[in-house]
């Protein structure tokens, strides 16, 4: 087969419109759910850190309360993280319907995606904050900063490269999860792969969707790496 023959067969591939639509759907799901994941996961991660073992108050009663709060949030995060995504997806169908009016398509996939990814992201944030030099925290306390000032002006800026890396990892996990939501009619590339590849044995569509997913993940990772490198550059 010559090169022009290959190009011709690619050009005449009849599924391009559907694949294009699927790619856009996957990207939409990933971007929107990533935004909500960060919006919810970041504060939860900060809360986990602030109530965590390294930050206990010197006052006994406050320390107890912190301990309970930490255990409660931590337990919830672990429960959500221990459910396989597919099961979470099915389990959440009534909630999703109530939230966005449908459990199908792009809109229907976003709530379960966020519920799956936000706890994961929150843990990443907690671990990043724990790794900030204790001295920085101490310097902030000594200059009379409030907890809010310390978190916003010192801790988060210090972890920014790590946060971007965590967002990259989460984005890639979301691309993977979003493909899985195809199983219950979630739309996107996963949906295509299931419908054509699994149900109709259409190998070309299957391979194309896989190739696009691989390219997407590589692009996201490269973009994340570049941002992290730029931010770490001057430090």
């Amino acid at each position, binding site marked *: 087969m010559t090169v022009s023959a290959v190009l011709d067969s690619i050009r005449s591939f009849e599924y391009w419109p559907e694949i294009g639509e699927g790619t856009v759907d996957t990207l939409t799901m990933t971007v929107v759910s990533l935004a909500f994941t960060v919006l919810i996961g970041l504060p939860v991660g900060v809360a986990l850190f602030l109530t965590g073992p390294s930050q206990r108050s010197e006052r006994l009663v406050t320390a107890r309360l912190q301990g309970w709060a930490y255990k409660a949030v931590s337990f919830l995060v672990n429960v959500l993280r221990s459910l396989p995504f597919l099961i979470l997806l099915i389990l959440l169908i009534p909630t999703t319907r109530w939230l966005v009016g449908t459990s199908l398509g792009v809109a229907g996939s976003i709530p379960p995606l966020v519920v799956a990814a936000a706890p994961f992201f929150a843990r990443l944030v907690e671990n990043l904050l724990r790794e900030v030099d204790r001295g920085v925290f101490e310097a902030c306390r000594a200059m*009379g900063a409030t907890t809010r000032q310390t978190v916003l002006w*010192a801790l988060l800026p210090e972890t920014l490269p790590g946060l971007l890396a965590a967002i990259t990892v989460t984005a890639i996990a979301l691309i993977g999860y979003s493909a899985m939501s195809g199983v219950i009619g979630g739309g996107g590339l996963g949906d295509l792969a299931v419908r054509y590849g699994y149900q109709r044995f259409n190998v070309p569509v299957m391979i194309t969707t896989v190739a696009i997913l691989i390219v997407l993940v590589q692009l996201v990772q490269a973009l994340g790496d570049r941002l992290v490198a730029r931010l770490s550059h001057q430090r």
Partner: protein
Amino acid sequence: MIETRAVGKTYYTPTGSFNALHSVDINVGAGEIFGIIGRSGAGKSTLLRTLNLLERPTSGRILIEGSDVTDLDGEPLRRLRQGIGIIFQHFNLLKSKTVHENVRLPLRVSGRLDRAAQDRRVAELLELVGLSRNAQKYPSQLSGGERQRVGIARALANGPRILLCDEATSALDPETTQSILELLLEINQRLKLTIVLITHGMDVIRAVADRVVILDHGKVVESGSVVEVFLNPRDAVTRALLAQSGIESGTVTTNGPDGGPVIRLTYHGATSEQPLLSTLSRDAGVDFTILEASVGHLKTVSYGRFTLRLQPRDSERLPKLLQLSDALGVRHEILR
């Protein structure tokens, strides 16, 4: 200015408790440089950190400028801390921020100035510590000494009356240590700043401190003016610390083949201006061997200390020698 009354600190661990501080009383006067020295684990860092309540004492009281701050919390505690600067052994700067932003942070925290005034204040502080050219650099681009200068500028941002130094020069080489100590002396004088510093090195104390306490196992074992403590140490711990700094040599061999009397003469201040040894030798009519000698400065006070062995034939002139040294203002000890 700063007073601790019977301050104690006990840490409770699952396996028991540990007393880091035992009823410590210190009293730091306004404008002085006060040293706290001890071996590692003596509790000096804990003591320093109780002064701005980074550690809350388990017993006793802390008084800052006459008011009891021991139980302050919330906003009043934050206000207090804004008036007490602190610098650290490892600088504790923010890696993600420029020098300018690091120094501006306490100004943002206290929120007393608007943005333009903050920037002016930062420029002024960087000028003071000699880092004006490095305002836009990141801490990783600076040397250790420069980083500590940033730490000092940051600590001074809100115009504190007290500066705490937590082993501020321990991570620096001797030359850089010297320049940081000079800077501390300069700001102590220029800004009338009260400085409390802790260190395990006697050299730091002798270079800058006015008064000193020696801490061991959480207790004050000795305290007084630096000259007093250095030239007349009473506690074994003090002597051991002094031995490192070369002032106290520990034991001198006083047994010689021709064992005449061995005496130690110590003096400081104006007495050092006089030709002491030759006067004593001539006027008492004695000859002696110098077994050990140390002369130098303690901050601005010069001092001298000699261990002398008299010739055996001069033994009977010893009383005369001691009398003369008394008249000259020289303290003596008979070692043999």
